[in-house]
């Protein structure tokens, strides 16, 4: 990273091609291999796990810490409930707060971002129901927002009277500028079409899940503010462990992230950062004893639960230090590896990356050769199953075509390659420290052999 404004806070990465490890910031390869063999021995042998982005993976060391938290609860739950539980959660919050440069009062830990999304959506619902927002006031969302987040806002906000309008994020995409431009065009259009409606909230990803790309969120926040958007909610599900998070720099009202995806927490643990003026208004959707005592307290007790995963957050953060100098070194390593592997695959398949490397974190979209014959979501799902069952490869297969329900035509936005758009399917490869080049070679070969079948058939 440099002082260049285009990069600061948006992407820690410049275009990289080589898979060379930074000397001194990572455990040497042999030691790393031993660590991985020990820490990820619970992985199904023989399965190439190229989809860390979906569920993450928790190392043995952290699982053992989790087990010891569970043990304390099982030993004497009442004793644990009156004191140690709250203390443990405060430590977890403090560690997260330190990482994201925020005061601990503004950070809560909870089970996952699904809960946080429902939490914010509920707050919006009450605003409509109690007349603080008027019927038809708008919420900006991305067309590629995570499905569950879309549903949360449909279930609570739309139902209570919100008008949701979408930014269509270009994909394939060529640059951050292209994204910013599309955003601004949408805002201009919305303001023109609905001049009296206030845009109460903008919801967008830090790292889009599918199709994955890093969005220039600091600039997007400024852009939204300049068009009168009142509040900003960032779905940073993949954020922590991938990008440097500085809540003050980002400037959003709400930022949520899963700690179990890229930060080695057990299933499952997440945090929500929230600007202080909102804290007293937000409520965890599962109401329990601590309702009304403040958001942090509400998230500390949602009824009897297993809190061991959230309590293990500090151990997860510590784990990074066992193989990397710091979190930045760790995330840069994953980034460099995934870009190198993505380029290797694109080259072997004669395709391209869906985004430039600097918009990749530890995941990358790699175009599949057209002869793979994927022409729908269902096809993509079948291919994914086939790759899993026949080739022992776990990887997310994505169909990038949009079906126009009226005309029946399928379009794939493809500005990068001009009019050519016969690449309609992609894989989303992840790289986590347990991955090896051989696994990506196996993916390369599997796709080549399936593509051969496709070519023979035509």
């Amino acid at each position: 990273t440099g002082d260049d404004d285009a990069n600061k806070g948006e992407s820690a990465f410049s275009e990289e091609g080589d898979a060379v490890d930074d000397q001194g910031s990572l455990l040497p390869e042999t030691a790393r291999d031993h660590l991985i063999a020990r820490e990820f021995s619970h992985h199904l042998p023989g399965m190439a796990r190229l989809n860390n982005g979906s569920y993450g993976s928790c190392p043995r060391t952290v699982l053992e810490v989790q087990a010891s938290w569970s043990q304390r609860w099982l030993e004497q739950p009442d004793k644990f409930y009156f004191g140690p539980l709250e203390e443990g959660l405060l430590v977890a919050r403090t560690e997260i707060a330190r990482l994201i440069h925020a005061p601990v009062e503004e950070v809560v830990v909870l089970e996952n971002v699904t809960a946080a999304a429902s939490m914010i959506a509920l707050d919006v619902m009450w605003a409509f129901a109690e007349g603080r927002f008027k019927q038809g006031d708008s919420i900006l969302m991305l067309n590629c927002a995570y499905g569950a987040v879309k549903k949360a806002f449909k279930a609570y906000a739309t139902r209570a009277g919100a008008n949701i309008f979408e930014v269509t994020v270009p994909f394939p995409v060529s640059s951050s500028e292209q994204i910013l431009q599309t955003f601004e065009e949408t805002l201009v259009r919305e303001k023109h079409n609905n001049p009296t409606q206030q845009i109460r909230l903008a919801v967008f990803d830090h790292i889009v899940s599918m199709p994955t790309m890093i969005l220039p969120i600091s600039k997007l926040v400024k852009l939204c503010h300049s068009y009168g958007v009142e509040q900003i909610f960032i779905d940073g599900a993949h954020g922590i462990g991938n990008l440097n998070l500085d809540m003050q720099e980002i400037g959003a009202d709400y930022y949520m992230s899963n700690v179990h995806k890229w930060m080695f927490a057990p299933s499952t643990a997440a945090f929500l950062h929230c600007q202080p003026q909102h804290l007293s208004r937000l409520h965890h959707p599962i109401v329990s004893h601590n309702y009304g005592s403040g958001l942090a307290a509400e998230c500390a007790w949602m009824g009897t639960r297993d809190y061991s995963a959230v309590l293990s957050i500090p151990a997860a953060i510590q784990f990074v230090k066992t193989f990397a100098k710091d979190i930045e070194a760790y995330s840069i390593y994953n980034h460099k590896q995934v870009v190198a592997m993505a380029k290797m695959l694109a080259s072997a398949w004669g395709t391209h990356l869906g985004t430039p490397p600097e918009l990749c974190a530890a995941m990358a979209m790699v175009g599949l050769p057209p002869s793979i014959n994927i022409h729908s979501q269902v096809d993509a799902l079948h291919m994914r199953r086939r790759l899993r069952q026949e080739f022992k490869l776990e990887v997310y297969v994505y169909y990038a075509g949009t079906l126009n329900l009226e005309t029946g035509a399928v379009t794939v936005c493809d500005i990068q390659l001009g009019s050519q758009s016969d690449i309609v399917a992609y894989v989303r490869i992840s790289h986590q420290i347990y991955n090896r080049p051989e696994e990506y070679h196996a993916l390369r070969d599997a796709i080549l052999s399936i593509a051969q079948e496709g070519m023979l058939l035509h």
Partner: protein
Amino acid sequence: MELQAVVAREFSHHEPGVARLNNGSFGSPPQCVLSNQTMWAQQWLQHPDAFCWEPLEKGFAAARQQLADLIHSPNVNEIVLLENATTGAGVVALDVMWSFLERRYEKGDSILMFNSAYGAIKKVLKGYCFRAGARLFEYKMPFPVSSNQEILQSFEDALRREKKENPSKVIRLAVIDHIVSMPSIILPIRELVQLCRAYGVEQIYVDAAHAIGNVDVNVQEIDADYYVSNLHKWLFAPPVVAFFHCKPQHLSQLHHPLVSHNYGLGLVGESYWVGTRDYSAFLAVPAAIKFVNDTAGDIKSYRDYNHRKVVEMAQMLVSAWGTHLGAPPELFGSMAMVGLPASLNIHSPEDALRMRTRLRTEFQVEVPLYYPAEGVDEIFSDHRHSTTKTSSVAYARISHQIYNKLEEYYMLRDAVQAIAAEST
């Protein structure tokens, strides 16, 4: 005796030297069920992408089917697994909230609650229903109490009075415990539901958090709209899992408070996925049911054993302390309310909490203590302290679970006697 061997093996995780007389709050899973849970968790860790489809669905379906059989539910589709009873209340509270917001209910339509309703449930209703315009109609349950008749009589009086004083207020929902948490007694739930319906209450939600494994559960006979019980309290499931039973006509409009991919597929579908989570406790439910059957033969024998024992211990304690039970033994399941000697000087819920802490730290006895608080205030005030000193009796709520021993109740007996002696 064989049970001793089972207990020593299965509850080896308990902190030694502690008289654990509070199974009611958090339960305790045996080692064999924990192992089963670990087995499920391992499958997830091995390959989550594959596990979250068929294996998870099949595991849920197996648990739901066994529960349906256990509670005499006519249809497995009326059973949903949730993380805990608190979540179950949230499901229904949300539905009531929408009814108010979308004007199916009018502002001021009532929700009937007991003053003894569980604190968290009161908060759920506050957070969703009262905020949306519902009116509280509170019923004060008698305690100490001498019979079911006494409860039914006073309940009907309250309904009759409400009908007379507020004839135009529709009672949209009644929230009733099957087993009150604190002060713990079994309520005559079948008759209470019938009374509610007779007096025009539209829907009834039974908070049966303690029920399964404690009392016989037959949802058809009870005939409530919603019936929710925790499985980790008295059915040996690991923390945490609960079931939610619901009359079929309500299923399509109910939603899980946490919205995820399955939103709109019905409550059953929605509860199958509330975002990436550890669902291993849900999947271990069949193992928990098996443990009951293996250990006691059947669930009735298991319940009867705990009940017999807790009553024995309760009577031993009141005899030693010169006090009384809070209700006749037939109103106790596996928990009993035992009056504490007045010389303990407990005159508020705060005093009771302090005494509880003292019993834990000084005497290694874990037992919740009860002192009545003002019911209405809890709904509208979050940190209400009792400022008036009343002369109610304080009680210990003792539980009996198969891992308990006689010596543990002696520890409680002696601790209380020692503390009582201080004031003389």
